[in-house]
């Protein structure tokens, strides 16, 4: 019978119930990006060129990195709203130090990472140890970190002149025809992607996000897992902040203000479920490229700003709606309430 044949085939590919829904989700982002590209190519002759592609990737690079960090936290079912503030704080403090102590050279990068780890640890402590809902905890640190930056900056700017030369070169340089930042972003995505797959640290993040109650029964340390994801996110955000600083040149205390919304949008569009447990940093990176593509294409079409916001908003809501449907499928597929003997 045809029906059973198809069922058998679906079964073999693992395309039954919740599993199918999960697999289709990642493909969805890629298809969405391709559709965008096709649409813009038709609408604007200037879109489908190497130069424009390069410019999209360059403008997406830092967002990609920040989205990877955010993805770590979202995979555990939490949020990090303080990402923009961590970027701003790290960039300001690090470049201030780099300008004053030139002899530190690239060692300032290590300091940036350490600073990001501390800021992430504070977030993680609030969420994992004090059990404050992450949306509130990181909304608080969003303000605190930004406030600290303003206090530290005392209305001064760090100007591009005091930036270390190697940093400026990195921001403007190209390697093999692509901006250095794009390579850096790809590297970060790959490293974190591999870490999630090959380190127990990454596996536990997925496990905890998938079913935190089961994680407890498996004897996993929930506090450690959530702390770990926030520290990772903090480090990556600080790194992204330093890159952004070098790109912008003149750094004031409002650097990356409001960036968290872009980052969250990228992660969600990229298919990382806001409920945790599913999605990948590769998806998050593609989500960042989707946002950059929308911006780029609409600028080429000379469309007004509010259309850009409109389209971006629709993309976010669509992405979360799809996630909600997938989630329901997975839940009904794994619900143990079914009494199989009644069916047979």
């Amino acid at each position, binding site marked *: 019978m045809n029906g059973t044949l198809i069922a058998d085939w679906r079964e073999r590919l*693992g*395309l*039954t*119930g*919740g*599993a*199918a*829904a*999960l*697999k289709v989700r990642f493909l969805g982002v890629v298809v969405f990006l391709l559709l965008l590209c096709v649409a813009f190519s038709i609408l604007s002759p200037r879109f489908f060129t190497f130069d424009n592609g390069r410019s999209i990737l360059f403008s997406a690079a830092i967002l990609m990195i920040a989205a990877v960090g955010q993805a770590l936290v979202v995979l555990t079912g939490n949020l990090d709203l303080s990402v923009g503030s961590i970027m701003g704080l790290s960039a300001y403090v690090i470049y201030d130090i780099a300008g004053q102590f030139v002899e530190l050279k690239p060692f300032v990068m290590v300091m940036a990472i350490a600073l990001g780890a501390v800021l992430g640890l504070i977030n993680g402590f609030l969420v994992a140890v004090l059990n404050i809902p992450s949306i509130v905890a990181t909304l608080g640190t969003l303000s605190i970190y930004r406030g600290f930056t303003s206090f530290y900056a005392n209305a001064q700017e760090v100007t591009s002149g005091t930036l270390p030369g190697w940093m400026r070169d990195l921001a403007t340089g190209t390697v093999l025809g692509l901006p250095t930042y794009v390579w850096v972003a790809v590297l970060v995505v790959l490293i974190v992607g591999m870490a999630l*797959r*090959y*380190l*127990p640290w990454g*596996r*536990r993040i*997925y*496990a905890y*996000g*998938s*079913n935190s*109650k*089961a*994680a407890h*029964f*498996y*004897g*996993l340390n929930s506090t450690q897992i959530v702390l770990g994801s926030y520290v990772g996110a903090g480090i990556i955000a600080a790194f992204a902040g330093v890159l952004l600083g070098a790109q912008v040149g003149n750094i004031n205390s409002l650097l990356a203000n409001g960036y968290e919304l872009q980052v969250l949008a990228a992660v969600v569009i990229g298919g990382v479920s806001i409920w945790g*447990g*599913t999605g990948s940093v590769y998806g998050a990176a593609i989500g960042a490229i989707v946002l950059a593509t929308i911006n780029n294409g609409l600028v080429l079409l000379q469309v007004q700003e509010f259309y850009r916001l409109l389209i971006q908003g629709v993309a976010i809501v669509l992405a979360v709606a799809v996630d909600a449907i997938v989630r329901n*499928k*997975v*839940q009904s*597929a*794994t*619900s*143990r*309430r*079914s*009494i*199989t*003997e*009644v*069916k*047979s």
Partner: protein
Amino acid sequence: MTPSPNPSVPRLSIRGVSKSFEAVRALRDVSFDLAAGEVHALVGENGAGKSTLVGIITGLRQPDDGEILLDGKPVAFKNPLDARAAGVAAVYQDPNLFPHLSVAENILTGQYPMRGPFVDNGAMRTKAAELLEKVGYPLDVDRLVAGLTVAEAQFVEIARALSSDLRLLILDEPTSALTPGEAAKLYEVAQRLKDEGTTVVWISHRMEEIRRLSDTITVLRDGGHVRTAPCAELEDDEMIRLMVGRDVVVETVAREEPLGPVQLSVRGLSAPGMFEDISFDLHEGEIVGVAGLVGSGRSEIAQAIFGLNSHVTGTVEVEGAVVKPKSPGQMAEAGVVYLPEDRDAEGLISTMTVRDNIALTGIKALSKLGFMRPSSEHERAEKQRVALSIKGGVVDLVSSMSGGNRQKVAIARWLAVNPKVLLLDEPTHGIDVGTKADVHNIMRDLARKERKAILMISSDLPEVLAVSDRVLVISRGQLAADIDIADATQENILAAATTTVSKEKNV
């Protein structure tokens, strides 16, 4: 093979273990031994303390008192991973898998095979496949758990529990979601493990599989140890008597008032995977008890009648008129109300006052031109407070009240809309004995004086016998028995609840 240094030393000794949750004593001074290489059945009613005991053995919970000896040495596991390392593992009744991860990852999370600092994915897949082979249920280890059937997921959990030196494996109702064929596979696994020297603790309500598998049976009741005996020495009747025979006396008051016409008529009610072909009538002035094991589909039936499940088929008639249950609001309007078992989470809004809770079901009736009228709200709440003798004032917060009083408020909330049919899910669960009697009297008054029709779901058999006029027994989603109260005994109810409808009764 499992090391067993001295055959006379029990594999596991439970010595004087006690555990309380707040005021509830879940385990009271429980002591018994489990021998090496036996299948040990652990039986008892819902709430007898089986799951708590399992949690303590595997380190999920810490005992308040007492100790546990594994092969003669005292152990105190801090968490399930600790227990696993010592060769003690459990498969719990609740689903405890990661739906978004692969079968292999689910089996080996917490004990990843490593190559240096990295997880060795190849070894993980091989190891997972080996373990599945061992339980006789090979699966593609790359599949996501979200796509598995219930039985497949169950075997993944069992594979997970296996390790090379498994000394004690606890299976908590492992066959409750399996077909007979799948269950048979599991019996083989248990037999094989036993032959290898592992002690298997088998928690089950099914007489036939207890008889088939177990060497020893331990009966728990109300958190206490009742008896441990070789399987051959304990007859079925005796076992059931030990399980239910408690000395809590529940008062029975004979009904004198005649029953009225049919108020609620249910015909062929089915919901895929939950229950099938449920038909019964509920008369005016009648209390019908619904007995059955937890998970048999009792609550789901009541919820479906109350419009909480949109995938049901069959017909529901209220006062002779066909009503299609679509939403709780619509059913409440039709005169059918439902009180959920978990009243704190679902039945009440505990951060509001008694008055506000009671007013919530009648916001429309109590308002004028779209504004709530405080005076009529107060009046309505006061009336119910007096009628149900709720202790405390109507402006007290529900969260400050005792369990029994909260339940009264939950009932009052619905009585205020003057329903015809009340569906009560475990109305006395977690309520002390004194208030329990109060709630029983309220139910009797509602049925006999107020002429309501009441469907009462309860796991407390003495309560079912004391309050009901008729008992429906649900077993695995099907109506197993409809017994008039005159013929009902704890034994025949439990027997009906533990057999499968399609099969012959063998209890």
